[in-house]
C-alpha cells in the first residue's frame, strides 16, 4: 500500500488497455502529456484526435463523432472540460444523450503550483446539475481503471474526475468497480465519514485516529456522485446517527450537498461538510495546500469530535 499513482495516470493506461477491447476514439486539447491520453495515442494513433487549445470545439466535435456510433473520450483539465466548455457539454453532449465520456484531469486544489485558475472546485456541482450526466470521482488507480470501463459500458454521457497528484491506493488490485454503488471500506457505529476522490484515504486515516480515541467511524467511498447510492447513505445515517462528508471540492454543490440532499429528504441526521470552504485555491505544493484548506484526516477528526460533542 506504500505505492502511489495519480488517477490521471491510471486513466491513460486504462484507455490504452481498453482501446483494444472497445471501439474508442480519444480527443484531447493539447494536454495529452498531462491528461495521459498520450498513453492511448502511442498505441492507437489513428483513433486519437488532437483538437488543439479549443475545448469548446472539442466537446462539440466529440458529440458529432458520437452521433456516428462511436464511444468518444474527450479530455482536458477539469477546469476547461467542465468550466470553459460547460455549455457545449450540456447542449452538444448531454441534451442529445450522446455517448461521450469527459475525462477531466487536474481536478481540485491538489493541482498545486499552477494556482487558482487551474484548480476547479466547482466541477462536480456543474456536472451533476446536468440532466442525465453520470459523475464519477475515483479514489485511486484501481478505481480509476474500473471507472473507465464502467463509463465505456454505460450508454450516455459520463463525467470522470481525475487528479494530478499521485495518491495512495485504498482498494485492492482485484477491485471491482460498480457504477452507482458506494463502498463501505470500514465499518463503524458512532459516525460515518462519506468521502470521494483523494479524501477517501484521509477518511480512512481519520477513522484510525478516531478509533484510538474510542470513536467507531464508518468509512464510505462514494465514487459515483451521480447517480448517488442513496441506500448506503441512508443506512449509514440510520445506524450511526452522524455524517461527515469529505471532498476536494467546494462544500457548495459537491458530494456534501449531494449527501445532504439524500439525508434531509430521507433520514436527517447531524452533519458537517468538510471540503473547500467557498474560496479559491492558490499556488503551493499540493500537500501543503491540502493541509491549509483543511483537506486532511486531522480536520475530519476534529469535525467528527465537534459533531459528536466530544
Amino acid at each position, binding site marked *: 500500500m506504500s505505492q502511489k499513482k495519480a488517477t490521471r495516470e491510471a486513466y491513460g493506461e486504462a484507455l490504452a488497455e481498453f482501446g483494444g477491447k472497445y471501439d474508442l476514439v480519444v480527443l484531447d486539447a493539447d494536454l495529452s502529456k498531462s491528461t495521459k491520453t498520450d498513453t492511448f495515442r502511442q498505441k492507437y494513433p489513428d483513433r486519437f484526435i488532437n483538437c*488543439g487549445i479549443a475545448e469548446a*470545439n472539442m466537446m*462539440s466535435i466529440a*458529440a*458529432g*463523432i458520437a452521433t456516428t456510433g462511436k464511444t468518444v473520450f474527450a479530455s482536458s483539465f477539469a477546469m476547461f472540460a467542465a468550466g470553459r466548455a460547460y455549455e457545449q457539454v450540456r447542449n452538444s453532449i448531454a441534451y442529445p444523450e450522446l455517448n461521450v465520456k469527459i475525462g477531466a484531469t487536474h481536478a481540485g486544489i491538489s493541482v498545486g503550483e499552477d494556482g487558482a485558475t487551474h484548480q476547479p472546485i466547482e466541477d462536480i456541482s456543474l456536472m451533476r446539475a446536468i440532466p442525465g450526466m453520470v459523475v464519477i470521482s475515483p479514489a485511486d488507480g484501481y478505481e480509476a481503471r474500473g471507472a473507465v470501463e464502467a463509463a465505456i459500458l454505460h450508454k450516455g454521457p459520463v463525467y470522470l474526475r481525475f487528479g494530478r497528484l499521485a495518491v495512495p491506493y485504498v482498494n485492492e488490485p482485484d477491485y471491482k468497480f460498480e457504477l452507482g454503488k458506494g463502498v463501505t471500506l470500514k465499518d463503524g457505529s458512532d459516525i460515518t465519514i462519506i468521502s470521494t476522490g483523494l479524501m477517501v484515504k484521509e477518511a480512512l486515516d481519520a477513522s484510525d485516529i478516531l478509533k484510538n480515541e474510542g470513536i467507531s467511524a464508518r468509512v464510505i467511498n462514494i465514487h459515483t456522485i451521480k447517480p448517488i447510492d442513496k441506500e448506503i447513505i441512508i443506512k449509514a445515517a440510520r445506524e450511526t446517527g452522524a455524517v461527515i462528508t469529505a471532498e476536494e471540492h467546494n462544500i457548495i454543490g459537491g458530494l456534501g450537498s449531494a449527501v445532504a440532499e439524500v439525508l434531509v429528504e430521507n433520514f436527517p441526521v447531524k452533519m458537517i461538510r468538510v471540503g473547500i470552504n467557498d474560496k479559491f485555491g492558490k499556488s503551493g505544493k499540493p500537500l501543503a495546500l491540502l493541509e491549509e484548506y483543511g483537506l486532511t484526516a486531522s480536520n475530519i477528526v476534529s469535525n467528527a469530535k465537534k459533531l459528536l460533542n466530544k
Partner: protein
Amino acid sequence: MNNKELMLIAYKVKKHVIDAVHSAGSGHPGGSLSISETLALLYFEEMQNLDINNPKNPDRDRFVLSKGHCSPALYGVLAEKGFFCRDLVKGFRQIDSCMQGHPSIKDVPGVDMSTGSLGQGISAACGMAISAKLDNKSYRVYSVMGDGETQEGQVWEAAMFAAHYKLDNLCAVLDFNGLQIDGNITDVMSPLPLDEKFKAFNWNVIYAEAHDFDSLRSGFAKARECKGKPSIIIAKSTKGKGVSFMENAAGWHGNAPNDEQYAIASAELDAVITELGGVG
C-alpha cells in the same frame, strides 16, 4: 430534379415555416425563409443515401443546422421528404408535440444533430466528417450557418479544425443575408470580410446565390470536386425571402406574424405554389 420542382418544394417549405411560426406564436421566420431553397436542394438532390424508413442509415450524408433557430425550415423539408407526417410541423413549439423550438435529434426523425446554441453545430458537423475519415466512409456532411453566427468564436475553432484535418467531405453553407436580431451584421459586430477569413483559414470558398438553384447546384458540385480542404458556400440570400413584408427586415428574425399578416403571407406563398403547379 428540375428547378421548377425544387422551387415548388422550397415554397412548400416556406409555407410550413409560416404555418409553424404562426401557430406557435413564436419562432424565427426570416432566416428560415432565406434557407428554404438551400434545404430543398440539399434534401431532394444533393444529399445521398437518405432513407425515410431508416433515418439512421450509417452511410447517409448528414446535415447539421448550425443556425438551429431556423428549425421550421428543417422540419418543413424533412416533412416534405417524408420523414414524418406534414401535419406534425404545425405542432411546432407546442407542449404536446415533438417539434422542439430548436432541432432535437432525440425527438424528430431525420434530424442528425441537436442544435440551437450558435457555433456548436458546425463543430459537430466536423466531428461527423472526421468520423467518416476514420472509418474510410464516403458520406458527406453539410451544415448551414448564419452570418451573424460567425461572431461566435467556436465557429473559428471549428474552421481551424476542419482545415487542419483536411475535411473535404464537409461542406458548410453560410446564409449570407446580412441581418441578425439587433440589425445589420455590419452595425452589430461586423464579421466581414467572411470570404477572406475562411480563405485565410484554408477553406475552399465558393460564392452562390441562395435563391437560384443553378448557382447553388454549381456551388455544391465545386465543393464535391475540391480535395484536401473543407468547402464553404457563401450563399447571398434575402432574409424573409418569399414573403414581401418580411424581406430584408431584421424585425422578422424572431417574430411570428399575427393573423392578418399570416393571411397575407399565406396568400403570397400559395400564389407561387399554384403557379408552380402545386396545391396551395
